[in-house]
């Protein structure tokens, strides 16, 4: 794992993956949107609003997935001091925050016609709002500390502590009586989503995953360049001071 700690090696790997991930993203988004806009399926209970599911569910899945990835990266950093782990965490945080905001917005727009209200303080919705605040706190902590090493340690601890929110979000609909519906299953031998809904949902889930992968890799390359800029500026200052 440590062989990828070399930025040049990571950049080579990222450059090889990026065109493929971008291709998968474009194809999956195109195919998914084509299926959504040509599929005339109307849910017996939710009517046409079921179409909101195709953006709400992938965004909600990834908002939690991104945070779980940040928590894993934080663990890897704290245990093995892998330098790319903090870079990955820092690159994933804004994307995760954006996807959490998207899940909340689309959830509200789905909630108003179905529940008669944009917002209720039920466990699932509140858990997602807390997740958004955790992302914002994580990013704010990175920006607030000048010492990169201290910032990496502090944000890693915050990310790991915040990960306790993930099972609460996931199982809130089973543990408590919530307005939000229980989780539907896309996987396994007996998925409880209508077959007409599965293909466009899978396409959008894959598209969102590829989107996340692309932006994370670009974000990591950007963070490596940011650190290189700091090092180059510092080297210039030292050479100017020595002359």
């Amino acid at each position, binding site marked *: 794992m440590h062989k990828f700690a070399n930025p040049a090696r990571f950049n080579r790997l990222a450059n090889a993956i990026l065109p493929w991930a971008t291709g998968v993203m474009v194809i999956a988004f195109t195919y998914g949107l084509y299926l959504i*806009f*040509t599929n*005339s399926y*109307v849910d017996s209970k939710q*009517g*046409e*609003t079921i*179409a*909101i599911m195709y*953006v*709400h569910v992938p*965004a909600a899945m990834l908002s939690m997935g991104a945070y779980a990835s940040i928590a894993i990266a934080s663990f890897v950093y704290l245990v093995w001091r892998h330098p790319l782990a903090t870079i990955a965490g820092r690159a994933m945080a*804004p*994307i995760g925050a*954006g*996807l959490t*905001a*998207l899940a909340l*917005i*689309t959830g509200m*727009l*789905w909630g*108003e*016609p179905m529940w008669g209200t944009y917002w209720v303080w039920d466990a699932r919705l509140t858990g997602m709002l807390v997740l958004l605040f955790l992302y914002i706190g994580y990013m704010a902590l990175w920006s607030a500390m000048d010492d990169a090493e201290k910032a990496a340690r502090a944000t890693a601890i915050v990310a790991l502590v915040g990960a306790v929110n993930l099972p609460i979000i996931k199982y809130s609909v089973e543990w408590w009586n919530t307005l939000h519906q229980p989780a539907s299953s896309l996987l396994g031998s007996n998925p409880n989503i209508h077959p007409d809904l599965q293909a466009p949902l899978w396409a959008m889930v894959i598209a969102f995953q590829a*989107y996340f992968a*692309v*932006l994370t890799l*670009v*974000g990591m*390359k*950007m963070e490596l*360049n*940011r650190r*290189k*800029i700091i090092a*180059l*500026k510092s080297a*210039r200052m030292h050479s100017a001071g020595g002359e």
Partner: protein
Amino acid sequence: MMMDFLPDMGEYANYIWGSYAAAAIILIGMAVITVLSHKRKKAEVQRLKPKRG
């Protein structure tokens, strides 16, 4: 022409198209910001790199 292609979303069309508009703004916005920031940082690295020779 576009409206012929787009399906009729019924009485809740505003909520549905609102969701897709929010998704487009957030996803495209984040992608544009990330790529532009990356390009800016890359150019700055090139500018700061000591010239050889």
